[in-house]
C-alpha cells in the first residue's frame, strides 16, 4: 500500500468510527458496501473492536420495546432492561455486544441460544418470550428476573450474621427487598438451602440434558435467587445443543475455569452431562466453603481444597461425588444429583455413586506396587510364552507364577474383564487401565496357554488372542516396543492357529486383519518397509475375507479400515520408490471408499494424498486435476461446522492442504499454510491431553510443532524457536527404547534443522551448532537403513543449511566443503530417483550457492571444475544440460572472467551442453521454448568462439 492509500484508509476508518458511534455496525456496512478498501477498513475496525476501543453506542433500537439501560455485559452479549410497549411489562433483552464488530460467529451463537432456550420448558429456566433481528444482529426478550445472582450473594454472605436464614439476609443486604419470608428456601438452614438451590438447578439441568442440551457454563453468576425464594438459571450462551451443529468443535475450552471439570479444561469435545454436574458441584462447594474447588487433572483423587470445611448433613458427600476428577466416578445424570440433593433437604442420607471395584483395586495397585508383583511375574512368563515349536530358551515354570484358576474360573474372570475393556461399563477406560486389564486376562489363562498349540483349549485361545491383539495395539501406541513385538508375535501365531482350527468367522478375520495392520505400522515406524508392505497386504486380505461373513451393520467400519489400510500400503510403496504400484493401490483405496457413501471424507483424504505424491513426483498436470477436486472439497468441509469430520480427518485435511501449498511453491505459502499448521498443532495437542501416555501421539505432536516452527522460522524466528524447543522436549520425554524408532530420529533431526534455520537470523554460530547436530542425527539414521532418495535429498538440504550458517558465521572455506558434501548427497539421491523434481531443483540451489561462494572467494578454477563434475554426472539428462549450459555461459560472459584458458573452457562447456540438450529432441512446449533460447545462445557462443579462435 502506498502512503496515500494508507492516509485514505485512515480517513475511511475515522469516518467509520463516527458512523459506528451514531448508527452502529449497520451504518458502517452500508457505507463500505462497494468501497475497494473495505477489507483494510474492516481489519482496522476489528483491531479496535478486539482491543475494546469501539465505544458502545446508545441502546439499540428494537421495535416494540423501549430499552432503558444496560443490566450486564458478558463475553459476547449484553442484556438491556426494557419495557414492552404492547403490554407495559418489564423485560430483559439480550443482544450481541455492540462493541463486538460484525462477527457472524457471534450472530450464529446468539441465534443458537434462542433456539436452544426456546426448546426448554422448565420453571427454573428463564424462557424466551420474543425474538427478532435488528441492525446489530439477533436479539431475544425474556421476562425480567428481579433478584440477585449467587455471585452477588457470595460477596455479601461473609458479612451476614449467622441467623435463621443467611440467604434472606444476604438478599436484603444486596438491595433486594420485599422478600417472601414464607418461601421454602428462606425457611431452611443454610446447608439445606444450598442443597435446595442445587436440587432446583439439577432438575432444570435434567430437563436440558434430556433435550440434548449441555449448559457448559454453570457458575454462581448464572444462578439467580428471586425475592420469592425461587431459583432461576440463565445464560445458555455457551450451551451445546446436540441437535444443532457443533460450532465450537475446534474451540479452546469454553466456560469458567474455576467450575470446569478437568476434561473441559483440557478442551475435550465429547463432554457429557457430568460436565454440568461438576460445575454445579463446584458452585455448591463455593456456596459452602466460600471458594471453588482446587483444579484437578483427571488423575487426581478429589477436587476439595485441603482443610475445606464442607457442610454437614450429607451435602459434603453429594458435593464430593459431583466434583470427582474422573467423570465416570461422578453422578451419571443430573436427575441422580437432584434426587440426592432432595434427600439432603429432607434430612435423609444421600446415595452417591460408588467408585467401581476395578478402579479402586487399580488405584490400590498403583499405590502399592508390591501387589502388582504377582501380575508382573505372570506377565513375564507370558511374554516368553511360545506355542509349539517355539521357545528354544528355558522358560520359568508357569505353575509357580501368578494365581491359579480352573478353566471355568479363568474364562469367567477374563470375560468380565474383557467386557470392561470393550464397554468400560458405560464409561471411558484409560489406556493404562486397558493395558492392565488385558495383561490380567492373559494371567488368568497362563496355565492353559503353556501347552502345545493343539492342546490349548479353544476358549483360552480365543480370549487370549483378542487380549494379545489389544496388548499389541496399546503397546504400540504407548511405544513399548519390546512388549509390542512379543504380543504381535504371539498374537499372529494364535490367530493362525484359530484359522487352522477352522474358526474362520468374520469377527476372527477382522481381528486378525487389525493385528496384521498393527504389525505393519510397527514395521513402518522402524522403516522395515518390505516387512510393512507384507503385513499391510495380509491385513487388507483378511479385511476382504471378513466382509461377506460379517453383519451388514459392520460393513461401514470394515470398509473404512480396509480403505485406510490400502492407503497406508500405497504410502509404503511410495516410500520404497515403487511409485506406480503406489498409485495403483491408491486408486483401489479411492474406489473402495467411493463405493461407500459414508466414506466420502476418507475418499477425499485419499485423493489428497495421491495428489501430493503426483506433485512430488513432478506429475503436475495429473496432480492439478485431482487438486481441483479435493482441495476445494477439503476447504469446504473444514469450514462447514456440520460436516461431522473427526479430529483425525480434520488433521489429515489440514496437513494435505498445508503440504499442497508447500509443494506447489506458491509465493504466499508463508501466510497460507500457517493457519493450517497451527490448527494441526492445536488438534494434536488435544490428542496428547486426552491420552498422556500415548507416545505415538507425542511424536506426531512433536512433528506438527516442527512443521509449524519451520513455517514460522522465516518471519518470526523467536516464535519458531519456542515451538521447536517444545518439540524437542516432547521427544526427550519419550522412553529410551523409542530412540530405535526411525520416526523419532527423523523427527529429531528435522526439528534440529528447523531450529538452525530459525536461529540463522538471530545467532548464526548457534544455528551452525544445531545444523551440525541435525546432520549427525540424520546420517546415523541413513546408515542404519537401506539408502533412500528422500533421506539423502533431505541430508543435502540439511548440509546446505549448515553451510548457510557457516557463511553467516564468516567461515566460507568450511561452507565450501559442506556444500560439496551436499551436492554429493543430492547426486546419490538422484541416482536412486531420477524423476524427482525436488532433487533436481535442490541440486541447482546447491550449485548456485557454491558458485556464488567461489565467486566471493575469487576462485574461477573451482567453479569450472564444479561445472564439469555436474555436466558429467547429468550427461544423459537434457533438462540439466540446459541449465548447466546457462551456468557455463554466465561464466564465459562474466566481466571478471579473464580472457584466458578459463574463458575458452567455459565457452566450450556452453557449446557442449547446448548441443547435448538440443540433440535430445523436443518433449514438451517447455522444451520448445527452452530450446529456442538455447539455439539463440548457440549462435552467440559460436560467434564468440570464432572470435576467440581468430585472436
Amino acid at each position, binding site marked *: 500500500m502506498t502512503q496515500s492509500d*494508507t492516509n485514505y*484508509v*485512515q*480517513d475511511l*476508518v*475515522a*469516518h467509520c*468510527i*463516527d458512523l459506528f*458511534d451514531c448508527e452502529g455496525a449497520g451504518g458502517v456496512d452500508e457505507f463500505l458496501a462497494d468501497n475497494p478498501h473495505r477489507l*483494510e477498513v474492516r*481489519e*482496522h*475496525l476489528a*483491531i*479496535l473492536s478486539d*482491543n*475494546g*476501543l469501539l*465505544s458502545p453506542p*446508545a*441502546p439499540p433500537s428494537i421495535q416494540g420495546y*423501549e*430499552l*432503558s*439501560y444496560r443490566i450486564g*455485559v*458478558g*463475553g459476547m452479549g449484553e442484556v438491556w432492561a426494557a419495557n414492552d410497549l404492547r403490554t407495559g411489562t418489564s423485560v430483559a433483552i439480550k443482544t450481541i455486544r455492540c462493541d463486538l464488530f460484525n462477527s457472524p460467529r457471534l450472530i450464529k451463537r446468539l441465534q443458537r441460544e434462542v433456539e436452544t432456550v426456546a426448546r426448554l420448558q422448565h420453571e427454573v429456566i428463564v424462557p424466551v418470550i420474543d425474538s427478532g433481528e435488528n441492525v446489530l444482529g439477533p436479539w431475544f426478550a425474556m421476562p425480567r428476573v428481579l433478584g440477585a445472582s449467587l455471585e452477588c450473594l457470595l460477596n455479601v454472605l461473609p458479612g451476614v450474621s449467622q441467623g435463621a436464614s443467611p440467604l434472606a439476609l444476604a438478599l436484603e443486604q444486596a438491595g433486594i427487598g420485599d422478600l417472601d419470608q414464607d418461601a421454602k428456601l428462606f425457611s431452611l438452614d443454610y446447608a439445606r438451602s444450598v442443597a435446595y438451590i442445587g436440587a432446583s438447578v439439577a432438575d432444570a439441568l435434567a430437563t436440558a440434558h434430556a433435550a440434548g442440551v449441555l449448559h457448559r457454563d454453570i457458575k454462581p453468576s448464572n444462578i439467580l435467587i428471586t425475592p420469592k425464594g425461587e431459583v432461576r438459571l440463565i445464560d445458555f450462551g455457551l450451551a451445546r445443543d446436540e441437535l444443532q451443529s457443533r460450532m465450537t468443535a475446534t474451540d*479452546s*475450552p469454553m466456560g469458567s*475455569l474455576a467450575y470446569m471439570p478437568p476434561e473441559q479444561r483440557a478442551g475435550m469435545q465429547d463432554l457429557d452431562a457430568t460436565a454440568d454436574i461438576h460445575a454445579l458441584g463446584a458452585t455448591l462447594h463455593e456456596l459452602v466453603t466460600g471458594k471453588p474447588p482446587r483444579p484437578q487433572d483427571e488423575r487426581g483423587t478429589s477436587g476439595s481444597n485441603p482443610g475445606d470445611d464442607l457442610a454437614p448433613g450429607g451435602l459434603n458427600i453429594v458435593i464430593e461425588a459431583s466434583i470427582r476428577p474422573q467423570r465416570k466416578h461422578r453422578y451419571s445424570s443430573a436427575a441422580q444429583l437432584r434426587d440426592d440433593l432432595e434427600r439432603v433437604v429432607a434430612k435423609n442420607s444421600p446415595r452417591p455413586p460408588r467408585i467401581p471395584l476395578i478402579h479402586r483395586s487399580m488405584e490400590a495397585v498403583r499405590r502399592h506396587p508390591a501387589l502388582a508383583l504377582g501380575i508382573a511375574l505372570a506377565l513375564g512368563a507370558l511374554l516368553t510364552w511360545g506355542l509349539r515349536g517355539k521357545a528354544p530358551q528355558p522358560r520359568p515354570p508357569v505353575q509357580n507364577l501368578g494365581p491359579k484358576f480352573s478353566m471355568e474360573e479363568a474364562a469367567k474372570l477374563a470375560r468380565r474383564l474383557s467386557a470392561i475393556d470393550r464397554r468400560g461399563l458405560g464409561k471411558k477406560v484409560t489406556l493404562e487401565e486397558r493395558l492392565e486389564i488385558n495383561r490380567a486376562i492373559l494371567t488368568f489363562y497362563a496355565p492353559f496357554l503353556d501347552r502345545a498349540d493343539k492342546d490349548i483349549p479353544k476358549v483360552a485361545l480365543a480370549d487370549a488372542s483378542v487380549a494379545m491383539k489389544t496388548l499389541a495395539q496399546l503397546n504400540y501406541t504407548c511405544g513399548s516396543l519390546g512388549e509390542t513385538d512379543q504380543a504381535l508375535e504371539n498374537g499372529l501365531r494364535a490367530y493362525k492357529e484359530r484359522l487352522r482350527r477352522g474358526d474362520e468367522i468374520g469377527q476372527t478375520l477382522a481381528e486378525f486383519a487389525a493385528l496384521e495392520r498393527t504389525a505393519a505400522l510397527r514395521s513402518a515406524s522402524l522403516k522395515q518397509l518390505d516387512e510393512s508392505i507384507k503385513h499391510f497386504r495380509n491385513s487388507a486380505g483378511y479385511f476382504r475375507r471378513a466382509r461377506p461373513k460379517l453383519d451388514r451393520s459392520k460393513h461401514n467400519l470394515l470398509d473404512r479400515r480396509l480403505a485406510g489400510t490400502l492407503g497406508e500400503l500405497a504410502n509404503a510403496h511410495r516410500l520404497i520408490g515403487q511409485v506406480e504400484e503406489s498409485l495403483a493401490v491408491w486408486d483401489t483405496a479411492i474406489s473402495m471408499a467411493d463405493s461407500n457413501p459414508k466414506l466420502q471424507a476418507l475418499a477425499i483424504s485419499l485423493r489428497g494424498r495421491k495428489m501430493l505424491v503426483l506433485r512430488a513426483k513432478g506429475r503436475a498436470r495429473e496432480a492439478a486435476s485431482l487438486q481441483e477436486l479435493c482441495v476445494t472439497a477439503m476447504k469446504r468441509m473444514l469450514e462447514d461446522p456440520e460436516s461431522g469430520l473427526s479430529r483425525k480427518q480434520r488433521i489429515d485435511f489440514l496437513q494435505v492442504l498445508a503440504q499442497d501449498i508447500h509443494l506447489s511453491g506458491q*509465493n504466499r505459502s*508463508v*501466510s497460507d499454510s500457517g493457519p493450517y499448521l497451527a490448527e494441526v498443532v492445536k488438534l494434536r495437542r488435544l490428542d496428547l491431553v486426552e491420552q498422556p501416555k500415548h507416545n505415538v501421539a507425542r511424536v506426531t505432536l512433536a512433528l506438527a510443532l516442527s512443521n509449524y516452527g519451520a513455517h514460522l522460522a*522465516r*518471519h518470526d524466528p523467536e516464535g519458531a524457536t519456542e515451538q521447536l524447543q517444545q518439540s524437542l522436549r516432547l521427544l526427550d520425554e519419550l522412553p529410551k527404547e523409542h530412540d530405535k524408532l526411525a520416526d523419532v530420529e527423523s523427527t529429531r533431526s528435522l526439528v534440529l534443522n528447523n531450529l538452525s534455520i530459525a536461529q540463522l537470523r538471530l545467532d548464526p554460530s548457534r544455528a551452525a551448532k544445531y545444523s551440525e547436530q541435525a546432520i549427525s542425527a540424520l546420517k546415523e539414521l541413513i546408515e542404519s537403513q537401506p539408502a533412500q532418495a528422500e533421506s539423502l535429498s533431505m541430508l543435502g538440504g540439511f548440509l546446505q543449511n549448515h553451510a548457510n550458517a557457516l557463511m553467516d558465521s564468516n567461515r566460507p572455506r568450511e561452507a565450501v566443503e559442506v556444500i560439496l558434501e551436499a551436492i554429493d548427497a543430492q547426486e546419490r539421491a538422484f541416482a536412486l530417483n531420477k524423476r524427482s523434481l525436488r532433487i533436481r531443483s535442490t541440486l541447482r540451489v546447491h550449485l548456485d550457492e557454491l558458485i556464488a561462494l567461489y565467486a566471493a572467494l575469487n576462485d574461477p578454477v573451482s567453479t569450472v571444475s564444479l561445472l564439469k563434475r555436474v555436466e558429467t554426472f547429468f550427461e544423459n539428462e537434457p533438462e540439466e544440460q540446459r541449465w548447466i549450459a546457462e551456468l557455463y555461459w554466465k561464466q564465459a560472459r562474466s566481466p571478471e572472467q579473464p580472457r584466458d584458458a578459463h574463458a575458452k573452457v567455459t565457452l566450450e562447456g556452453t557449446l557442449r551442453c547446448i548441443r547435448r540438450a538440443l540433440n535430445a529432441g523436443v518433449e514438451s512446449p517447455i522444451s520448445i521454448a527452452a530450446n529456442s533460447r538455447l539455439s539463440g545462445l548457440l549462435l552467440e557462443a559460436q560467434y564468440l568462439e570464432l572470435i576467440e579462435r581468430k585472436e
Partner: protein
Amino acid sequence: MPPHRPTQEDLLIERSLAGDPAALQGLLVRNLPTLETYIRLRSPDLVGPRESVTDLAQSTCREILENLDRFQHGGEGHFRAWLYETADRKLKNRRRHNHAQRRDVKRVRPMDSAHDAARHLAGFRGVHTPSAHAEAREELDELVDCLDEIGEEPRRLILLARIAKIPHRVIAERQKMSEATVRQALHRALAALAERIASRRRPEPPS
C-alpha cells in the same frame, strides 16, 4: 432517547459527598481496574520497570480521598475526569521525581507478569476469557507500543475517552474545545492506532 436514570456511580458520588466513607471506598474500588489500566497505558516508561501500577493507583486514590471536599459533582463523567486528571498529575510528579533522583537501574525490579497484563486488559474490555488471559501479555505490549508511537495528545485522548470512558462533552469542557473537535480528533487518533497495530501484524514480504 430514554430518560437519564441516575447510575449506581451517581448514587455513590452523592453519598460520598454527603460523607459516607463506605460509598467513597465503593466508588474507588469500582474505578480501580480501569484506573490501573489507564496508568499502565499512559506511562509505559514509568510503570513496569520503575513503579508498580498498583502503588501508583493507590497513591492516586489516597489523593482523591484527601481532596474530596474540593470536588464538585457536575454530572456523568465528572468524577472520572477528576480521577484521571489526578492520576495524570501523579504520573507527572513521579516522572519528575525519578528524573531528579536518577535512580540506579539495578534497583529497578520487574513488576509485570502475564497475569497482570490479563488483569489490565480485562480492566477495559470488561471481559476476561481464558484465551484473553493467555494472549494478554503479547496484546498489551502491542497496544502499549502502538499507543506510544501515535504521540502524546492522541494517546491521552484515546485513554480518556475509551479506557476511562469519560464522555466527549466532559473532555471538551475540560480541554476548552468543542465537542465536535474532540470527536474528530479522537476518531483520527483511533484510526492511526489501528493502522499502527495492523502494520505490525502484517507479515514481512518474503525476501
